[in-house]
Structures are given as structure tokens and as C-alpha cells.
């Protein structure tokens, strides 16, 4: 079987798994998880917001790995991986910021505040939008991959800043409850609903990544 056919089949399987995962996530968020005692139903936005940011971390982590591996090995496959992951990471970061803003309006009374977590996340988005713009501006493939590799590594320094911003600075945003050092204070049904949604988002990310890598190899054939 040609590898292209196998890859297409794998992408389709990932697509269907992502659909099932997201549907299970919706059932968990709206059918299984209880109404939160303080915030009421608006807390259900967390089942979208938290998995989005965790998926964005995963994407930008892959940008770091792809960038570093390209600069060491000069293999274009690593550069393709970094570029694909960056594009998808930007989409998930945008979903994180918008969903957080919509949650913030009824909960904090404002759509946006220059809190450390919000500001560092906005900077994260701008860094990777800049990464994609840089790729679009440089025509020569080797130079593009090299410059993007450096930005991909430097940009990743912002990920721990985003994550630990709520510990390092006085912030309006609540501290980390999922990837925090302390045991999670979240009630089990809420944690389970978050986990199901996290799996659904990770499957969607894997599907997007597989699709984007197929497109990258088609683009290379056309170049």
C-alpha cells in the first residue's frame, strides 16, 4: 500500500476519533458534570477553555521539539512539524483567549484585564503569529527553516511564563488547578469532565496535525 494512502486512512481514523471525543466531551460538560456551586452554569466554559490551553501548550511544545531537531539535523520533516504545530497552536490559543474573555465578563465583570496570565497568553499568541508571518515572508526554504527554528525555540520560553504567571505575580486569574504542584482541589465529576474534553481536544489536535502535514508535503511537491 502506498504510504500516502496509509497516511490518508490514518488521518480519517483520527478525524472520526476526534468527532467521537468531542461529542463525549459535550456530553460530559453538559450532561455529566454538575452545576458549579458558586459560578453556576457559566463554569461550563472551563470544559472548553482549559483543554484549549493545554492543547496549545502541546502544540508549542512540538514547535520547540521540531525547531530544535531541525537546527541539529537539517531534516525538513522537523521544520514541517514545527510549522504545522505552530499554526494549530495559534488557533487553540485564540480559542483560549476568546473563551476566557467570555467567561470573564459575567465572573469578573470585565471582558479583559491586563492581568499577568491574560497578558502573557496574549504575548504567546503574538509570538506565534509572528512566527507564521516570518515563515510567510522568507522565500528561501533553508533560510526560512533556520530563522523559524530560532524563533520556535526562543518563543517557547514564554510557555512557562504563561503557566507560572499566576504564581509569580499577583493575578486576578485563579492559580493552576490541573498542572499545579499541589493536589487538585477539583471535585471528581468536574475533573473527569475536564479529562474527557482534554482527550477530545488532543484527538482533534492530532487530526489537524496529520492533515496539515499532508498539506505540507503536497505543497513541497508543488514547489
Amino acid at each position, binding site marked *: 500500500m502506498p504510504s500516502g494512502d496509509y497516511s490518508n486512512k490514518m488521518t480519517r481514523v483520527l478525524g472520526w476519533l476526534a468527532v467521537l471525543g468531542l461529542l463525549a466531551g459535550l456530553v460530559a460538560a453538559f450532561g455529566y458534570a454538575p452545576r458549579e456551586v*458558586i459560578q*453556576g452554569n*457559566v463554569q461550563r*466554559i472551563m470544559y472548553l477553555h482549559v483543554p484549549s490551553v493545554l492543547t496549545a501548550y502541546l502544540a508549542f511544545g512540538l514547535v520547540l521539539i521540531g525547531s530544535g531537531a531541525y537546527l541539529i539535523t537539517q531534516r525538513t520533516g522537523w521544520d514541517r512539524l514545527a510549522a504545522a504545530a505552530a499554526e494549530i497552536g495559534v488557533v487553540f490559543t485564540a480559542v483560549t483567549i476568546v*473563551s476566557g474573555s467570555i467567561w470573564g465578563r459575567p465572573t469578573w465583570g470585565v471582558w479583559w484585564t491586563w492581568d499577568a496570565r491574560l497578558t502573557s497568553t496574549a504575548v504567546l499568541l503574538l509570538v506565534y503569529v509572528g512566527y507564521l508571518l516570518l515563515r510567510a515572508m522568507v522565500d528561501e526554504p533553508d533560510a526560512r527553516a533556520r530563522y523559524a527554528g530560532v524563533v520556535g525555540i526562543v518563543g517557547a520560553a514564554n510557555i512557562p511564563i504563561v503557566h507560572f504567571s499566576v504564581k509569580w505575580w499577583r493575578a486576578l486569574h485563579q492559580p493552576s488547578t490541573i498542572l499545579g504542584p499541589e493536589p487538585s482541589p477539583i471535585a471528581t465529576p468536574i475533573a473527569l469532565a475536564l479529562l474527557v474534553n482534554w482527550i477530545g481536544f488532543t484527538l482533534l489536535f492530532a487530526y489537524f496535525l496529520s492533515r*496539515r502535514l499532508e498539506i505540507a508535503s*503536497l505543497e513541497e*511537491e*508543488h514547489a
Partner: protein
Amino acid sequence: MSPMPDNWSYVLAAYGVAAVALIGYWCYLSARARALTHGRRGRGQST
């Protein structure tokens, strides 16, 4: 009884915007793949 009202409109808005962003990105990828596949077929026929 929760101290906050339910705010279902905000919940719907958040999920709606996310659906538009994710489905929009999926449509973009599909259109890009279609354009490149058609381009490859066209090139194959012309040679």
C-alpha cells in the same frame, strides 16, 4: 442556590465562537488540500 445567575448566553457564545474557529480551520485545511490535489492532477494530465 448559586450566588451567580446561570448566564447561559455566555456559555452558548463561548461554545459557538469555538465551534466557528475550529470548523473554520477545518474548512481552510480541506480547501487547501483540495486545491493542491486538483493542482497535482492537472499537472499530471498536462504532462
